[in-house]
């Protein structure tokens, strides 16, 4: 049982998962950001592997990625940074990126480095379910690495069930069929979708993400699932803040306590 599974066993609601792009704002901020997020009371950290062509992401994440790449971020360095952070914290960590990054690094080598660095799971939004099952499922399990697939309001029930079957850790519920970055305020259609997900009694816990930027959004997400994922809003806060540590504490505080 890895750290993610343990987390969800211990905590069933109000989970706060924060995403950031590794290498942004500074090349070597990764470790500090992880530690401070942990200290600020965040439950789960999602480390974005910056990508040149992040087509599932909105403008904020896209921009942070290209800054990170310009800063010189690359996977070997990132694994070292995560490994170093892992010495100082036990917070569950997932890496999020694009399948091509894994492919070029070499899937086996990539998974080994994850294990070695203390990464608990992966999110690869453009990795097809069937390809994961056929090629990687066994290796992931052997390495004790989780995998989270996305579902959206448009995902059909039988496909949700399939995704639940394959995912290990949690399911990433995209709150809306739109790329990340906008402000959420749930429509009837979204509420229906949350209800439907709840009713399916999936094996994996559910986290709602995309467009959450405030306590209001966080609370709403939590009331319909096990918790929330926040990305773009946090990146904007990092861009605007002066001091990394205080910016992070302020941001997390604003989400949890308003």
């Amino acid at each position, binding site marked *: 049982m890895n750290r993610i599974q343990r987390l969800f066993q211990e905590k069933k609601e109000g989970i706060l998962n924060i995403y950031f792009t590794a290498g942004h704002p500074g090349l070597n901020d990764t470790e500090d950001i992880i530690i401070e997020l942990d200290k600020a009371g965040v439950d789960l950290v999602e480390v974005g592997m910056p*990508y*040149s*062509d992040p*087509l*599932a992401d*909105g403008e904020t994440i*896209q921009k942070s990625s*290209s800054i990170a*790449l310009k800063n010189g971020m*690359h*996977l070997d360095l990132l694994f070292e940074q995560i490994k170093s952070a892992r010495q100082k914290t036990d917070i569950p960590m997932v890496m999020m990126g*694009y*399948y*091509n*990054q*894994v*492919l*070029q*690094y070499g899937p086996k080598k990539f998974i080994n480095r994850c294990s070695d660095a203390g990464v608990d799971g992966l999110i690869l*939004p*453009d*990795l*097809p379910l*069937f*390809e994961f099952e056929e090629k990687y499922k066994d290796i992931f399990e052997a390495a004790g690495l989780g995998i989270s*697939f*996305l*579902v*959206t309001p*448009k*995902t059909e029930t039988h*496909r949700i069930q399939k995704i639940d079957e394959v995912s290990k850790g949690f399911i990433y519920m*995209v709150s809306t*069929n*739109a*790329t990340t970055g906008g402000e959420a305020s749930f429509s009837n259609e979204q509420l229906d979708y949350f209800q439907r997900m709840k009713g399916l009694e999936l094996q994996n816990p559910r986290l709602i993400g995309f467009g959450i930027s405030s306590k209001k959004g966080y609370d709403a997400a939590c009331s319909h699932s096990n918790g929330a994922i926040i990305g773009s809003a946090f990146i904007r806060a990092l861009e605007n803040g002066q001091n990394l540590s205080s910016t992070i504490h302020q941001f997390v505080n604003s989400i949890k306590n308003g």
Partner: protein
Amino acid sequence: MSNYEIDNRGFYGKFGGAYIPELLYPCVEELRSQYESIMQDEGFQEEFQSLLKDYVGRPTPLYFAKRLSKYYNTNIYLKREDLCHTGAHKVNNTIGQILVAQRLNKKRIIAETGAGQHGVATATVCALMGIECIVYMGEKDIERQAPNVKRMKMLGAEVRPAMSGSKTLKDATNEAIRDWINNPHDTHYIIGSVVGPHPYPDMVAKFQSVISEEIKWQLKEHIGKENPDAVIACVGGGSNAAGAFYHYMDEADVRLIACEAAGLGVESGETAATSVIGSEGIIHGSRTLLMQTDDGQIVEPYSISAGLDYPGIGPLHAHLIDSGRAEAVSITDAEAMKAGFFVSKMEGIIPAIETAHAFAALEHIKYKASDVIVINLSGRGDKDLATYVAWDNNEYQHNH
């Protein structure tokens, strides 16, 4: 079954597939599950064929280029896609896709464009059908293909600049995909080449396959046999090449020659010669050959030709080249421009700079005097006049 058709998961050998985020899944799945039955529908075929004939101007001629043949001491035929309405092969595909979009009840069309030809072809069919049209185009391409931007606007389309990355075709494609993710219900994305997730490469190749379908009977009219010794086409994403190769893929005696843009040279770091310096990976939802770093970051391409300035190639071409069925030839900016000027003065046809890359292959490949070579003249050069003139005056500026 052909070795060069997709399998039931949308793969050509190991290339192809649909590597897309879940957000795109419903859009792509809707299309995937319906495109074949739509395309096989009789009413669809009737409308498609009638538009190709009466609106696009098909069949396009297969022209025996007398002076060029004499110069190269062989037999050169030109497939005149430059005579298609809007000036390139691109419209074969957009006519097909707009009819698919109508049958999927889509009310809004998006497209990416590099040279602007696909953008114009998309804006054109949207005007024809009275459907809203938004075209994403790299900021750099908006500059270097200004005439096509004006045309799109006159046709009623909105042109949105893509400002990220190299500000070219790749980035326009990213933006279009993002738009589609945000507008999955009412929008159809008309991809302009044999790239993107399954079923696009197959669908676009089939719409473009009319090119080689016509070459076959036209060549038979000209020389009494359907098969040439070689077919030459330029490859950006690869749609015109796919169309020109399609009905010859299983005819082993026909050489298939794919011309990629080498930019300043294959080794210069300023190139778009994907099959030479690229490797297997994923781009725009498809597993194919692409130009990338060890870390899997996509490398920004460079070519003087906006339509070839793309870091990938369609999965069909990756498969054809990887399997040895097709030969890839790399053509530099300078070689292409020289060929463009030469063909203009020799045959009275100003080719698109994209197409000029195909002509330049005649300086690279081996052939016999008795050979019959078909060059796919994918588009006309009207859009490129400013670049040609600047080049001629030694004023061409490559600022990557």
